[in-house]
């Protein structure tokens, strides 16, 4: 579903990504872990076509970036630590706007489905600026799945959430993954990543330093695997 080969991203003279090779099978849930400044957000911005690679090849759902960016964007749902929602619009107005931008057929029905999925059906006519951070993040996931994408990218979705909101977000993420979508999530929260993902990749100094399936971590835990990958 996602194939990245020798991806390099430079900002001026500084190389943030130094030849990333990355492959994700359909339906996999990959947690992309790494310290601050490792290049996780830059990597996801390139996958989501918001940033151009300096070198290398990126293929998502059979389409090449950056040349077939519109086709890639039609199959992607992106959630970042910012909600990407308009505070002066209601929850359903926000979803309606994005549904129109993605040309979702029968979007009124889909909006109701999505609001039920993220548990905000009873707040559909409330302005988004009145929502708590957790509710905004759940609605952001609703926005990202409104067009029923094959691939979901989550960039630090737990940033700024309290325990209750994080638990609710866990449930939403599980339901998103259970629908068979391919998910790539960056996170600093190893416990949550261990709980949700089927594969763990460690991004360090601009390259994938280590990768392991969940089944490969039986003898060791994720924290040890993470520490070892960063130390090597």
């Amino acid at each position, binding site marked *: 579903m996602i194939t990245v080969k020798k991806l390099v991203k430079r900002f001026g003279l500084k190389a943030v990504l130094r030849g990333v090779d990355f492959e994700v099978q359909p339906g996999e849930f990959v947690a992309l872990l790494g310290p601050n400044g490792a290049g996780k957000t830059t990597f996801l911005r390139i996958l989501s076509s918001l*940033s151009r690679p300096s070198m290398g090849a990126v293929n998502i759902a059979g389409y090449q970036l950056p040349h077939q960016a519109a086709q890639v964007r039609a199959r992607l749902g992106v959630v970042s630590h910012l909600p990407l929602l308009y505070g002066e619009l209601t929850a359903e107005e926000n979803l309606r706007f994005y549904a129109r931008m993605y040309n979702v057929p029968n979007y009124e029905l889909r909006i109701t489905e999505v609001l039920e999925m993220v548990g905000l059906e009873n707040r559909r006519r409330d302005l988004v600026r009145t929502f708590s951070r957790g509710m905004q993040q759940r609605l952001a996931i609703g926005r990202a799945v409104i067009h029923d994408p094959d691939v979901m990218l989550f960039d630090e979705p737990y940033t700024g959430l309290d325990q209750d909101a994080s638990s609710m977000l866990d449930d939403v993420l599980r339901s998103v993954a259970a629908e068979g979508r391919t998910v790539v999530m960056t996170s600093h929260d190893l416990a949550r990543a261990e709980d949700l993902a089927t594969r763990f990749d460690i991004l360090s100094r601009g390259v994938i330093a280590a990768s392991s399936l969940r089944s490969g971590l039986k003898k060791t835990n994720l924290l040890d695997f993470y520490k070892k990958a960063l130390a090597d």
Partner: protein
Amino acid sequence: MATTTEQATRTASTRTTPITPSFFKAMFAVVQKDLAAELRSRELLSAMLVFSMLVILIFNFALELEPDIRRKVTAGVLWATFAFAGTLGLNRSMAIEKDRGCMDGLLLAPVDRAAIYFGKVISNLAFMLIVEAIVLPMYGVLYGVNLFQPGLLGVILLGSIGYSSVGTLISTMTVQTRTRDVLLPILLFPIIIPVLLASVKASGGILSGAEFSEILTPLNLLIVYDVIFIAIAFMVFDFVVEE
């Protein structure tokens, strides 16, 4: 792994192939969203209106001109007011997109990015025209000039189109900087000078009752500038919004 892959294939097979929206559908979605948000908050319009009224009042008391001279400076005062108030509106309009990461949300949509640009231009133009429609009668009362002349309204429309098209492009660039409030007028005004000069000349000519042949040159310049600026903005918007 096999289970998740099989499940993905099964679920993906029920998904429809996405069809990207048409240019106009996406453009009008952006316009409708901007108008709905502004109708609710009225932040942008109220700031532009209050600022415009203050500028007109200050000019009125500061200049204290004879009625005849007042008529002569009308075009200049009007366009200075529109230009200054316009920067407030442009800044606010793009700040709304930037503050909650909504610009990324727009750019992630599978639409021609020119549709986003033209959607924002139409919204910004609508806000400018609303403010102008309120400012004109107020100015007419204070300065004793009849501004509701079809020719003048046409020039105001053309000038506002040029201003909004360039302003939207420049504000998309400046909103990504920390000093966006300062940077927008610094970058915008030198570029917009041809539009403002042509607008002032054409407006002044109409208000002084000049022959049509006399205002034809600034009018033609205004139309040419509008076309050139819109074409350039259309071509470079994609590069401006990319990192």
